[in-house]
């Protein structure tokens, strides 16, 4: 299938993943266990964009706020919307990433990498140091992608399995809980 058709027809896949990830992160108080990698912390914060419908009938809501319980966003879920964008803080070992994931196209936006010595020093570098700095940053970008892909695979395996209906029921129960009970 042509990529343009795939983007339209399979738009739901990324949005379902992001919505599932929100539920999954709250299921164990902000921690998701990844095979081989162990626990990663996944915290949704500050900024969310929810969407329902397609084309001209699409409806969107944006929710932002520093100390928010994201109640408007939760109400959006109850109205049948799904997450299209979310600001996520992802932690693994000593590294902490902050980024916005745009679900339909899997765009990584405003990614803040963990601070390390090589990426932070801004003095004039010789070519070897520059190459080292580039490699370190690329390594950190790839670590982030690997973690997001590992979370995505966790979702996909569940989504294509027979136990998906069970998981779906749990998500629906979570969506239907009153926002004040969070």
């Amino acid at each position: 299938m042509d990529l343009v058709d795939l983007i339209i027809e399979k738009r739901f896949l990324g949005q379902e993943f992001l919505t599932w990830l929100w539920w999954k992160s709250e299921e164990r108080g902000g921690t998701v266990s990844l095979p081989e990698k162990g626990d990663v912390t996944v915290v949704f914060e500050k900024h969310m964009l929810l969407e329902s419908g397609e084309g001209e009938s699409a409806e969107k809501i944006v929710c932002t706020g520093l100390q928010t319980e994201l109640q408007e966003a939760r109400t959006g879920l109850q109205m049948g919307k799904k997450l299209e964008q979310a600001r996520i803080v992802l932690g693994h070992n000593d590294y902490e990433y902050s980024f916005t994931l745009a679900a339909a196209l899997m765009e990584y936006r405003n990614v803040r990498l963990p601070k390390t010595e090589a990426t932070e020093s801004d003095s004039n570098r010789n070519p070897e140091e520059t190459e080292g700095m580039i490699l370190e940053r690329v390594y950190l970008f790839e670590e982030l992608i690997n973690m997001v892909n590992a979370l995505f695979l966790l979702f996909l395996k569940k989504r294509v399995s027979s136990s998906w209906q069970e998981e779906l029921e749990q998500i629906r129960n979570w969506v239907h809980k009153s926002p004040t009970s969070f």
Partner: protein
Amino acid sequence: MGLLKGSASFVRFSVQGELPENPMDYIADRVVSFSYNDIDDTYDEYSIGWVSVLNMFDSQFKYASYVAGDYVTLTLRIDERKVSPAILKKMTQKEEERIRLEKELPKLSRSMKVEIKERVRVELMRKAIPVPSVFELCWSLSDSTLLFFTTNKKIHTVLEDFFKESFGILIRQQIPYTTAENLLKDDDLLTLDRLSPELFV
């Protein structure tokens, strides 16, 4: 901005197709062949090409400065001469009026107006300073993937075309579905293909 410092926005592409033997020699040759050509001192309206990620004025890549370990890091530079529509409209009207008075005509013909507008456009374009835009990329040769540091969809299409032109291989954006195709195996792929949207309420 993005690859080297500060916060970054990017999308992923998969690189599809095989590089010839001695890929580094091939890439070196192609990068230089398709490097950026300056148009500041010409009347060209558009120029596109590769420059160093460290310096947008470096299109010579001395000592293969685009290689970092197993990665090729490049900046796609696009310079374009642009004339704002409001300026074009103003200057065209001014010129039309000047010619109408000069020729003592009550009204200019349609073909004269078209000719004046095109002439004014070319004159303004020549005076305009090319506006540069730069977009970094990081190509992993071992993974055959590429990070492109912009979420501008129009530029994604430009990259797809220019990358193919430069290196003779295709790239394909990794959206959730194509990423899933790479992550899943066997029967799971068939199930993936049949999935339909689910209601979460």
